[in-house]
C-alpha cells in the first residue's frame, strides 16, 4: 500500500510537472497579451510529433533540442499572422481563433501521422529502473523532472534578471506605460508568445518519451493546465507552478483510493479555491 501510494505520488508529481510546464506557457501569454491560447495543447502535440520524425535523423538528444525550437518558429509565425490582429479586441475572438487552430492541429496531426499511438524511442540507459525496490523510478522519469526543473528555473531567472524578463513583467502590470517608454510592445509580445510555446514544445517531447504519441495528447493536458492557473492564482507564475504540482499530486493520490474520481478531484479543488479565495492561492488582489 505504501509503495502504491508512493508510486502514485511520484506519478502525480511528474504529471503535475507537465501541467505546470504547459500552464506556465499559457500563463505567460495570458498575462501579457490577454489571450487564452486554446491551441497550446496543439503546439505540445506538434512538438512531440516533430521530435518523433526528427529523432530518426538526429537522435533523441537532437530532437529534444530542435523540435521545441521548430514549434516556436511555427508559433511565432501564427502569432504574427493571426493572433496579433486580435490584441485589444474582445477576448472572445482570440478564444475562438485559437480554438479553431486547436481543432486544425489535432486533425492535421491525425492526418499526417495517423490516429494510432506511436512509440517514441528514448536512449536505453534512461529507460531502465534505477532500483529494484522503486521499480517505477526509471532513469527517464528522473531525467524528465530534472529537465522540467531546469526549464522552470531558467524561465524564472530570465524573468528576474534579463532585460527581456523585466519588460515582460512590466508589461504584465501596465503595457501602456511600457509602450510609452519606447519599448517595442509588438516584438515583446511576439517573443513572449514564443517563450510560452517553447515550454509547450518541450513538454511535448518529454511527454512523448513517457507516454508515447497520440494526436489527442495535447488536448488532454489543456484542461488541467487551466485549472492549475486558476488554482494557483491568475497573474502569478509561481502560483501556476504550484497549482500544477498540487493538482498533479492530488489526482495521483486520488487514483490510489478512488480511481474514477482522479479528474473530478481537480475540479473540486478548483471550486473550493474559488469559494474561499477567488483570486487563487498565490494570486494578487485586484488582478482578476
Amino acid at each position, binding site marked *: 500500500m505504501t509503495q502504491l501510494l508512493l508510486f502514485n505520488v511520484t506519478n502525480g508529481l511528474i504529471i503535475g510537472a507537465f501541467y505546470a510546464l504547459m500552464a506556465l506557457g499559457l500563463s505567460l501569454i495570458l498575462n501579457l497579451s490577454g489571450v487564452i491560447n486554446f491551441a497550446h495543447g496543439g503546439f505540445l502535440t506538434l512538438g512531440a510529433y516533430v521530435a518523433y520524425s526528427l529523432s530518426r535523423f538526429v537522435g533523441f538528444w537532437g530532437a529534444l533540442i530542435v523540435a521545441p525550437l521548430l514549434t516556436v518558429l511555427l508559433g511565432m509565425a501564427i502569432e504574427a499572422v493571426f493572433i496579433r490582429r486580435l490584441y485589444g479586441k474582445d477576448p472572445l475572438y482570440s478564444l475562438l481563433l485559437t480554438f479553431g487552430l486547436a*481543432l486544425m492541429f489535432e486533425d492535421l496531426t491525425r492526418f499526417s501521422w495517423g490516429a494510432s499511438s506511436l512509440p517514441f524511442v528514448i536512449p536505453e540507459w534512461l529507460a531502465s529502473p534505477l532500483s529494484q525496490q522503486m521499480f517505477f523510478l526509471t532513469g527517464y522519469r528522473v531525467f524528465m523532472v530534472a529537465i522540467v526543473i531546469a526549464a522552470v528555473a531558467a524561465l524564472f531567472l530570465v524573468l528576474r534578471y534579463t532585460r527581456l524578463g523585466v519588460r515582460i513583467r512590466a508589461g504584465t502590470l501596465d503595457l501602456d506605460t511600457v509602450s510609452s517608454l519606447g519599448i517595442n510592445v509588438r516584438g515583446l509580445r511576439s517573443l513572449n508568445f514564443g517563450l510560452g510555446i517553447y515550454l509547450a514544445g518541450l513538454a511535448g517531447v518529454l511527454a512523448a518519451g513517457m507516454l508515447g504519441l497520440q494526436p489527442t495528447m495535447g488536448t488532454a493536458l489543456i*484542461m488541467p493546465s487551466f485549472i492549475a492557473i486558476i488554482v494557483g492564482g491568475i497573474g502569478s507564475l509561481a502560483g501556476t507552478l504550484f497549482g500544477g504540482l498540487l493538482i498533479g499530486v492530488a489526482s495521483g493520490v486520488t487514483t490510489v483510493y478512488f480511481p474514477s474520481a482522479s479528474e473530478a478531484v481537480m475540479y473540486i479543488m478548483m471550486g473550493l479555491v474559488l469559494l474561499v479565495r477567488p483570486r487563487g492561492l498565490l494570486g494578487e488582489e485586484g488582478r482578476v
Partner: protein
Amino acid sequence: MKRFAILAGVWVLLLLAPYWLPLVGGYMTLGTRVLILGLAAMALNYLLGYTGVLSFGHAAYVGLGAYGAGLTIKYLGFGTLQGIAAGVVLGTVAAVVIGPLIMRLRGIYFAMCTIAFGQVFYFIAFRWHSVTGGDDGLGGWKRLPLHFFGYSLELVQDEVAFYYVALAFFAVAVCAMGLLLNSPLGRMQLSIRENEQRARFLGLPIERHVLLAWVISCLFASLAGALYALLNNFADPRILRWDFSGELVIMAVLGGMRSFWGPLLGAAVYVVLQDYLSSITENWMSFIGLFFVLVVMFFPRGVLGVLKRARS
C-alpha cells in the same frame, strides 16, 4: 412596422419548415437540429451578446439538460414532458450552484472558469459508465407519445410531429427571452454590457444581475439540451465537452451577437456546413477549425451585423 415584418417572416419560415425544407434539399431531422441548436445559441447569446459576459462553458448546461431528460426517461419511466422538465431542472440547479462561485470574475477569467467548470460534468458522464453509458453515450430509450386533453400525439416515428413539439418549446423560450430583454431587467443587463462601471455607480447590484442572466441563459440552454436528447433518442457525452461550447459561441458570432435572431441564423449555417463537410471528407474537423479562423478574421460581426452595417 419593419420589426413586425421580420418577426412575421421568421415565424412563417419556421412554421412552414416541413414544407419548404425538402425543396431545398434538407431533411426534417436537420431542420429540427438547427432549431434546437439555434435555441441553445440564442440562450447563450442572452448572456454573451446582451449582458456582455463571456461564457465558454455552456455545453455543460446543454449536456445536463440532455442527460437529465435521458436518465429520467430511461430509469424512472418519465414521459416526454416530465423528462424535459427534469433536464431543465438539472441544468438550472447546476447553474445556480456554480454561478455564485464565478460571479466575481470578469472577461477572460470568467471564460476560463466556465470552461473548466463545464468539464466536471463531462468527466462525470464519461466515468460513470454504469449509469450514463460513459463514452458510448446514453441510449436505449425513446421519446414517448404526448398525451393531452384526451389526445395522443405519436412522436416516436413522426419526425414532423416532433419538429412542431420542439418549435412550441422554442416559441415559448424565445418569447420569454424577448420579453425579458425588453423589460427593465433586460435593460439593466444591457447597461452592464455597455458600461459595467457606470452601471455600478448608478447603484445597480451588478453581481445579482449577472447571476440572474447566467441562470436564465443556462435554463434555456438546458431546455435546448433536453430537446436535443429527445431528437436523437440519445444523450451524447460529446455535447458536454468544451468543443461543443466553442461551437455554440461560433454560432452566435457567425449569425451576429448583437441581434436577437442572429444565433439562429448562425446555427443554421453552422449545422448545415458541418453536416455537409462530414459527408464529403474525413478531415472535416480541419475545415471546421479553418472556418472558425476565417470567421474571426474576416467576419467578426456576423451575418446580421454586416447587414445592419451595410444599411446604416
